C-alpha cells in the first residue's frame, strides 16, 4: 500500500493541492427558496409505470412492435422452408381402410339369391297349388313379397350393424363374414320341405342366420355323428325319466 502511495505520490499531491471549489454565496438562499417552493407545490410525482403507460410514450414502442410483426410475416411468407399449412394435404392414417362399396356387396347377395332359386327349381320344389282360392294365393303372394322385403331389410340392417361395428372398433371395414354367411347359407343344400316352410312361414330361418358352413373331414364328421348320437340318447333318457 505504501509502495502504491509512493508510486503515485506526485498525482496524489497534485490532487490534494487542487484549489478547493466552494459553493456560491447565495447557495443557502437558493436552497431555502427551492425547499419552500417544493413545500407549497407538492405535486404528486407519477411513478415509473405510470410514466411508461402515458399514451404519447407508447407510440414509438407500438410502432416498433407493429413493424416487427409486419417484417416477421413478410419474411415468413417468403421463406421456402415453411409450407403453407392451408395447402398441405391431410395426412392419411395407414391403419384406416375405408370400404364403402355396399352396392357391390348387395349385387353379390342378389346373385346368391338367384342361385339359390335356381337350386330350388332344380330340386323341384312344389309350387303353390293353383286350385287354392284366390284369397290364399293373394295372401301367399303377399307373404312372399313381405318375406323378400324382410330379407332386404335384414340385409340392410346387417350392413348397418356391420358398419357400426366397424366404426366402433375404429375401423370402417366391413367384416366379410357378415355377408359371406348369408350367401353361404343360401348355397346350402336346402331340402324341399325346409324351403317350402321358409316360404310359408315368417319365422326366422337358416337363411337369415349369420353362420358359416364348414366342410368337415371324415374324421370330424365321425366325431360329430358320435356326438349327435350321444345327444339323442341323452334326450331319450330325459324323456323316459319324465
Amino acid at each position, binding site marked *: 500500500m505504501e509502495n502504491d502511495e509512493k508510486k*503515485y505520490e506526485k*498525482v496524489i499531491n*497534485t*490532487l490534494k493541492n487542487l*484549489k478547493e471549489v466552494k*459553493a456560491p454565496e447565495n*447557495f443557502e438562499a437558493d436552497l431555502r427558496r427551492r425547499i419552500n417552493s*417544493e413545500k407549497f407545490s407538492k405535486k404528486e410525482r407519477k411513478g415509473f409505470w405510470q410514466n411508461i403507460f402515458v399514451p404519447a410514450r407508447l407510440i414509438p414502442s407500438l410502432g416498433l412492435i407493429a413493424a416487427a410483426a409486419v417484417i416477421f410475416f413478410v419474411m415468413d411468407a417468403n421463406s421456402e422452408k415453411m409450407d403453407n399449412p392451408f395447402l398441405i394435404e391431410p395426412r392419411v392414417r395407414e391403419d384406416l381402410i375405408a370400404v364403402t362399396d355396399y352396392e357391390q356387396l348387395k349385387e353379390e347377395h342378389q346373385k346368391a339369391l338367384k342361385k339359390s332359386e335356381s337350386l330350388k327349381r332344380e330340386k323341384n320344389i312344389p309350387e303353390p297349388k293353383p286350385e287354392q282360392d284366390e284369397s290364399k294365393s293373394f295372401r301367399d303372394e303377399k307373404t312372399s313379397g313381405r318375406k323378400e322385403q324382410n330379407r332386404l331389410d335384414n340385409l340392410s340392417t346387417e350392413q348397418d350393424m356391420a358398419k357400426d361395428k366397424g366404426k366402433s372398433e375404429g375401423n370402417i371395414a366391413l367384416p366379410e363374414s357378415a355377408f359371406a354367411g348369408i350367401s353361404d347359407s343360401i348355397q346350402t343344400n336346402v331340402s324341399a320341405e325346409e324351403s317350402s316352410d321358409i316360404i310359408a312361414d315368417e319365422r326366422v330361418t337358416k337363411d337369415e342366420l349369420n353362420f358359416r358352413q364348414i366342410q368337415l373331414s371324415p374324421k370330424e364328421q365321425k366325431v360329430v355323428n358320435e356326438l349327435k348320437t350321444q345327444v339323442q340318447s341323452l334326450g331319450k333318457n330325459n324323456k323316459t325319466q319324465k
Partner: protein
Amino acid sequence: MDKNLRELSDEELILEFQKNNLEAAFEILVQRYKNPLTNFVFRFLGDYESCNDVVQETMIKVYRYKDTYSSVAKFSTWIYTIAGNLAKTEYRRQRRRNIFTISDYGEDNKPYDLPDESYRPDVATDSGIKDEIIQKALMKVKETYREAVILRDSQGMSYEEIAEILGVNEGTVKSRINRGRAQLQELLKGFSYR
C-alpha cells in the same frame, strides 16, 4: 441555542432535525457540507453549474428524507452517498446529451479534449491553467475509478468510509483508487507537477 447546536456532531444535528424538526440543525448541516460536497461533485462532473444543482438537490433530499437516515451510519457517509448517486446520474445524463449534440461542437469547443501544447511545461505555468488541465485529465479517468480517487485524494476520506459510500468492499476501493491514479498519471505524462 444556535451556539449550542454548532457544538453538536453531524449525527446529533440530524437527530435533532428528525425528532424536533429543528430547521436550524439542518441549516448548520448545510453550512458544514455545502463546500466539501461542491468540491467533490465538481471534481466528478467538471461543470460548476450542474455541480451546484446536484449539491442543492442533495440537500433537498436530506431535508425531505431525513427520516430515512439511520444513526447506525455516519452522516457524512450518508450525505456523500446521496451526492455521489446524484452526480453519477447527472454525469450520465450529460454524456447522453453530448452524444446527441456532438455535431454542435466545433473543433475548438470539444469539451474534454486536451490540446497537445497544454502538456508542455512552458505553457502550463499558471496555477489556474494547471488546475484546468488536471480537471480535464480527471474527467478522462473511468467513472468508477474517478469517484474513488476524488474521495480519497481530494476529500481525504479513509478506505473504510469510501467503501461504505460506494457500497463495495475495501479491497475493491483500493484497486479502483490505484487504477484511477495510474490512469491519471498516464494522462498527465509530461505535465510539470508543482
